[in-house]
C-alpha cells in the first residue's frame, strides 16, 4: 500500500487555502481574456473586470472576416497539420528502423538524429534564413513546414524509438516466418502496437507547432502567409488600444487547444511532458 505524504490537519489549512487560490492564478488570466473577447473595447475601458453584459459574439465574425484571422487560422492549420503528418510518418519510419535493425553505423545515425534535440534555435535560424532564400523557400509555407519537420524530428524519434524498442522481438521473428516483408512488419505490426506513442508525439508536436513563433517570424514576411501567433502580434501592433478585438483574436488562437484539452487533458499532459519523463 502506498502512503500519502500527509500533513497534520492544522497545518493543512494554509495548504487548502493555497489549493483553492492557485487555480484562479493559472486559469484566471485566460478567463479574463475570454470575458473581454465578448465585450467591446469601450465596455472594457469602462470596467475592465466586469462580466460581459451583452455577449458580443459578432466580434468573432468581425475578427475572422475583417481582420484577416481566417487567413492566419488556415495558414496555421495547413502548416501544423502537414508538418505533424510528415513528422509522424518520417519519424516513425526512422524510429522503427533504429529500434529494430542492427546495421553498420546505426549508433552514428541515432546520435546524429537525436542531437538535433539539443541545438538552440538561434544556432539555426540565421543560416536557415539564408538557406531558404537560396532554395527559394523563404516566405513560403512549404519552407516553414520543412523547417518545422527538421526541427522536431529529434524529439519525435527519441520518444518513438524508446517505445518501439520495447516491443518483443519474438513478434518480429514470427512475422518473418509468416513471410511478412520489412515494410509490412512496420506497417502492420510496429505501427499499430506503437499507436499510443505515436499519439503522444502527435499531441506534443501539434501543441508546440501551433504555438511556434520564432521560426515563423523570421521566415515569413507577407501578411497573407502569417500563422496565428504572427497574426496576433501584427494585429496587436496595429491596434494597440483595441483591447476587445485583440482578446477576440487571442481566443480564436487558443480555442482549438482549449477544446482539445477539455476532452483529452490526460493525453495532452502526457504528450507535453513526454520528452522529460522516461
Amino acid at each position, binding site marked *: 500500500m502506498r502512503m500519502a505524504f500527509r500533513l497534520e490537519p492544522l497545518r493543512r489549512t494554509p495548504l487548502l487555502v493555497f489549493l483553492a487560490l492557485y487555480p484562479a492564478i493559472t486559469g484566471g488570466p485566460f478567463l479574463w481574456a475570454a470575458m473581454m473577447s465578448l465585450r467591446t473595447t469601450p465596455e472594457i475601458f469602462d470596467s475592465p473586470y466586469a462580466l460581459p453584459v451583452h455577449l458580443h459574439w459578432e466580434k468573432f465574425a468581425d475578427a475572422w472576416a475583417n481582420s484577416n484571422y481566417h487567413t492566419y487560422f488556415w495558414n496555421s492549420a495547413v502548416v501544423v497539420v502537414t508538418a505533424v503528418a510528415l513528422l509522424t510518418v518520417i519519424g516513425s519510419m526512422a524510429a522503427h528502423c533504429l529500434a529494430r535493425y542492427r546495421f553498420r553505423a546505426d549508433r552514428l545515425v541515432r546520435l546524429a538524429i537525436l542531437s538535433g534535440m539539443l541545438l538552440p534555435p538561434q544556432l539555426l535560424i540565421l543560416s536557415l534564413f539564408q538557406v531558404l532564400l537560396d532554395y527559394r523557400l523563404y516566405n513560403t509555407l512549404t519552407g516553414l513546414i520543412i523547417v518545422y519537420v527538421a526541427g522536431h524530428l529529434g524529439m519525435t524519434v527519441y520518444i518513438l524509438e524508446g517505445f518501439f524498442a520495447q516491443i518483443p*522481438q519474438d513478434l518480429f521473428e514470427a512475422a518473418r516466418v509468416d513471410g511478412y516483408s520489412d515494410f509490412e512488419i512496420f506497417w502492420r505490426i510496429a505501427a499499430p502496437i506503437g499507436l499510443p506513442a505515436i499519439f503522444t508525439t502527435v499531441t506534443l508536436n501539434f501543441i508546440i507547432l501551433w*504555438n511556434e*513563433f520564432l521560426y515563423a517570424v523570421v521566415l515569413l514576411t507577407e501578411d497573407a502567409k502569417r500563422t496565428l501567433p504572427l497574426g496576433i502580434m501584427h494585429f496587436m501592433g496595429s491596434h494597440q488600444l483595441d483591447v476587445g478585438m485583440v482578446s477576440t483574436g487571442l481566443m480564436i488562437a487558443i480555442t482549438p487547444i482549449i477544446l482539445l484539452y477539455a476532452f483529452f487533458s490526460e493525453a495532452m499532459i502526457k504528450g507535453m511532458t513526454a520528452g522529460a519523463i522516461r
Partner: protein
Amino acid sequence: MLRALTRRGLDARQAPPGTLVAFLAPALLIYAGFTVYPVLRTFYNSVHTVRPHGVLEYVGLRNFAELVRVDPVFWKAVGNTAIFAIAGTTADVVGGLLLALSLFSRPPFAKFLRVVWFTPVLMSYVVVGIIWVWIYDFDWGFANLVLRWLHLGALTRSWLGDPSTALASVLVTHIWKWLGFNMIIFLAALYALPGEVLGAAELDNCSGVAKLVHIIVPMLRPTIVNLLVLSFIGKMMIFDLVWVMTGGGPLWSTETVSTYVYKRAFDWNTFDLGYPSAIAVLWFGIIIAFVVVMTRLLRPRDRLEF
C-alpha cells in the same frame, strides 16, 4: 518465398541495405539539409562578415573579439539572461516540487487542480505575453488594481515600462507559465517512489519538513537534476516571451542574448549575419559547457539503498 527466407535469413534484426535506406532516407535528408547544413553554415558565418546577396569577407575571430571586448549591449544581455537562468531555474524547480507535494498529499479535487494548473503550459508565448502585458498595465492592469485595493497605491507603477522592474515582471510570467510542467514531472516521480520508505518515515514520526529534506529530496535527485538542466537550457534561450512583452526594452533592461541575436540579424540595419552568428556560436558553447558541468556536479554519487 523459401529462397527469399534463406537469402535474408530468419534474423529479424537484419535487413537489406535498400530497406534501411528506404526507412531512414527521408529523415536523414531533411535533417542534413535543414539542420546539419545550417548549423555548419552558422559556424562558418561566425568568422565572416556576411553581407546581403551572399557577399562574404573572412574576418577570422574579429567578431568574437569585438563581442567580448567592446559590445556593452552583449554584456547587458548576458547579465539579464544569467538572471533569468539562475532565478528562473531555481523558482521553476522549487515551485514545481512544492506544487507537486501539495497535490501528492491528496487534497480534494486533486485531478481537477492538476488539469487547471497545467493550462498555461499549453498556451503560446504570444497569448500569454499579451495577457500579461495587460495585467502589468499601469491604468487598468490587475497588478496595480490589487495594490490600490490594498491601499498600497505608492507601489503602483508601469511594471514593464520601468527598467528596474521590467526584467522581474517578465520572469514572473515565464515562471508562471512553466510551473505546471515541473509539477507534473515531480508528481510522476513522487508516485514512482517506493511506498514503504515513506511509510517507514511515517512510523518513525518524521515531520513533514524532515521527510521532505531527508527522504523525498534525496530520492528525487535524478528528477531534480533533469529538470534543472531542462529549465536552465530553456531560460538560456529565452526569446518569445521577452519579444512579445518588452522587445528587450526599456533601456536594454530585458534584453536577452537571443533577442539581441535577432535584433543584430534582422532589426538593426547592420546588414551582417556574421556578427550575430558569432553570438549564437559563443552562446551555444557556453550552454553546452554549463550543462556538462551541471550534470557532472549534480550526478547522484551513491545510489540509495532501501
